[in-house]
């Protein structure tokens, strides 16, 4: 007979919090696993009363949503945590933010609104901004136009099973070229389909269709995530949770 953990089962989840966080600066080189470890340790340091799974190796209740690739910065990563004691979301945000390295910031924390559905269902698109040091607007603009004029642009993507051809065009809902301080900026809205198209894939596509080869490694930042509507707008995925809070807060007054 195998041993069983003694004592009562762990306390249940009484509150779900949804967080938006940023990875910036040097820590854009952190992978999803690196950030997950860092967040879990920060939760312990901040003494957030996490709910745990049962069994011999209890895990804190944390669900991660699709992470930005290693090397890309982000202002819009999302995670949901389950607590065993109700807490003020803003206090959790501030405490957790203070416990994290400077270049990981907790930007928002809201309580999951009852009956509003899952967070994952509210995210199907990323908004990217890619700085291209050493590239001018005059070089980038025609490349983007050429890319958008195509129906399919096949690029080779490195996967676990070697190189694989994917279409980088279909996932790109919109793209435009801009410029800041002499540096060309690629703005784009990319649907999260399978196989995933990442900024690197679009840059490979620009090289393929317009021979655009940035002299320095580009810097990508995910500026937002959410659901893409028919007008091309990406909705705030925490909006429904905020909306669900308003009546109750009014009721309390």
């Amino acid at each position, binding site marked *: 007979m195998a041993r069983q953990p003694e004592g009562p089962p762990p306390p249940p989840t009484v509150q779900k919090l949804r967080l938006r966080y940023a990875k910036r*600066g040097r820590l854009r080189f952190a992978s999803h696993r*690196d950030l997950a*470890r860092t967040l879990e340790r920060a*939760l*312990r340091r901040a003494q957030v009363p996490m709910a745990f799974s049962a069994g*011999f190796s209890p895990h804190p209740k944390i669900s991660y949503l699709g992470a930005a690739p*290693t090397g890309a910065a982000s202002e819009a990563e999302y995670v949901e945590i389950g607590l065993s004691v109700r807490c003020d979301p803003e206090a959790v945000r501030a405490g957790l933010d203070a416990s994290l390295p400077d*270049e990981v910031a907790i930007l928002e924390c809201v309580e999951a609104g009852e009956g509003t559905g899952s967070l994952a269902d509210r995210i199907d698109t990323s908004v990217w901004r890619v700085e291209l040091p050493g590239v001018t607007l005059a070089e980038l603009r025609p490349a983007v136009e050429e890319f958008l004029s195509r129906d399919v642009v096949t690029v080779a993507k490195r996967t676990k099973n070697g190189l694989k051809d994917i279409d980088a065009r279909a996932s790109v809902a919109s793209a435009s070229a801009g410029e800041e301080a002499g540096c060309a900026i690629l703005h784009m809205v990319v649907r999260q389909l399978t196989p995933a198209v990442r900024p690197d894939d679009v840059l490979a596509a620009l090289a393929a269709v317009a021979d655009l080869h940035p002299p320095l490694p580009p810097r990508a930042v995910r500026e937002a995530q959410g659901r893409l509507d028919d007008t091309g707008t990406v909705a705030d995925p925490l909006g429904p949770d905020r909306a669900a809070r308003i009546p109750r807060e009014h009721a309390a007054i």
Partner: protein
Amino acid sequence: MTGETLYPRLEPLLAQIQKPIQYVGGELNSQVKPWEDAAVHWALMYPDAYEVGLPNQGLMILYEVLNERPDALAERTYAVWPDLAALMREHGVPQFTVDGHRSVADFDLLGVSFATELGYTNLLEALDLAGVPIHAVDRDGSHPVVVAGGHAAFNPEPVADFVDCAVLGDGEQVVGDITDVVKAWKAQGRPGGRMELLARLARVEGVYVPRFYAVSYGPDGAIAGVQRTRDDVPATVGKRTVMDLDEWPYPKTPIVPLAESVHERMSVEIFRGCTRGCRFCQAGMITRPVRERTITGIGSMVEQGLKATGYEEVGLLSLSSADHSEIGQLAKQLADRYEGTNTSLSLPSTRVDAFNVTLANELSRNGRRSGLTFAPEGGSERIRRVINKTVSKEDLVRTVTTAYANGWRQVKLYFMCGLPTETDEDVLEIAELAVEVIRAGREASGSKDIRCTVSIGGFVPKPHTPFQWASQASAETIDHRLRVLREAINADRRIGRSIGLRYHDGKPGVIEGLLSRGDRRVGRVIERVWREGGKFDGWSEHFSYDRWTAAAAEELAPFGVDLDWYTTRERTEHEILPWDHLDSGLDKEWLWEDWQEALSEEEVADCRWTPCYDCGVCPTMGTEIQIGPTGRSLLPLTVV
């Protein structure tokens, strides 16, 4: 400008390499002090990959001790993987620290901690990447002083041409003394240049400056003598020993990496030194005497460390943790304190006795009982008497069976092969033992779902141990014994399928042996291997035995010695050993007697419980054993 950040030049390279996170710094509890605020700048290096080097306790302690001084600044640097090293050379980016991304060449001192000799080629690679001449004699006042430390520094002769100094023993206090010397010399306007600074450092207790000692060799190839070249340096250099560990509760705020590292836990050193007297164990010989932290001192380090890091596991470290005088109370009280907090405690077990199982049960009260590790080290009772790690076969089987009966599913047994006087029969007894353990374990646990993993590696004789005179077994001998062991384990599949065998082939051990007991002539081999592309020798995918043997053959031939001369050759009693002028406190005559007693299979007692000053360490170094019990208790933590 000195101390300027290289990050803007490094960043574009990071997008092109594997695991860039290891080079960016910014970890929790790391620090970057303003360059101008410090009078003395230390770069601290662990000469292996970040994932191996980051958890190193020694480096983490010195980082904190130095940074606590307002007049000093310390930053960390690690071996750079070949993918980034190639890009750094192409783009002219030098070896950098991960904290401030400052050029290592800008620092006053480069301290390198050698836990193993296999890091020597990585030192040369780092110096070269830093733009610092690899030979100490080619450096001038503008270059950092290269200081070696760690256990391998007890015989720094193979790297004597590459380091400026080696520090013997505990580092906590000596780094402060070195800082004071460098600070004063700089403040006085660097009188006498680099040579004067090194002479001043050579007068600091525990600091060895190889260039002030001349080595001569006899016609037989052995050392004829070691002479001081200046009167103002000591004839022999003694090690440093930190007393009263409670006064040195470091690291207080361990660095928490973002990247994955080899130890995903916080470590608290519960005592330093070991007097069990295992004859193969260099650590146990050179870190004497035993100095315990008190139960309350340990309790507060665990508490503060967990607060500072958020780790969910704490390892209670030492050379033989079950030997702490209050380990039973410590385990129970820590387990009480952290019950229900999802914090796990672990004890790296080494000794084989039932008490270890009791302790492990206590620490895993509500956790999974997955694996338990014991280290009998020798396969037969006879060889265990030779190495002075006496445990009878019956006790061993009984202990492991108790573990299975208490719900532990997997037991790991550590062994060495190639020990002095060993025969195939000694090693074959490991197979018998493992079979018996599984039989008894299945019966005791009533389950076939138990495993025993035998982990075995080749023994490397080390300086400052009774085995420093021994013949090292050849790679062929090691590989042969591993082969017969594997066949014996697999002979009965019904039992054998529950036994795992993990082993390392004999080749890397031979090179480790060359570097461990080598003299200054071996430096030419190290340099040759590095020039031919050798680095990361601790990694099987980078280690090349053929490159080492070819370099050894060519570079050693002019001296009339060879690889075998350094490894498989048994030394005689009065041969001058390369490290004889470096004093670990151990009396050479005592070591020789202990070697003779090993050959006649006699045991020696632990001086912790039977007052004995025979090894010479306490009288020579002016130290004492510091052990409890204190009788104190840990108070329950106040709930926040």
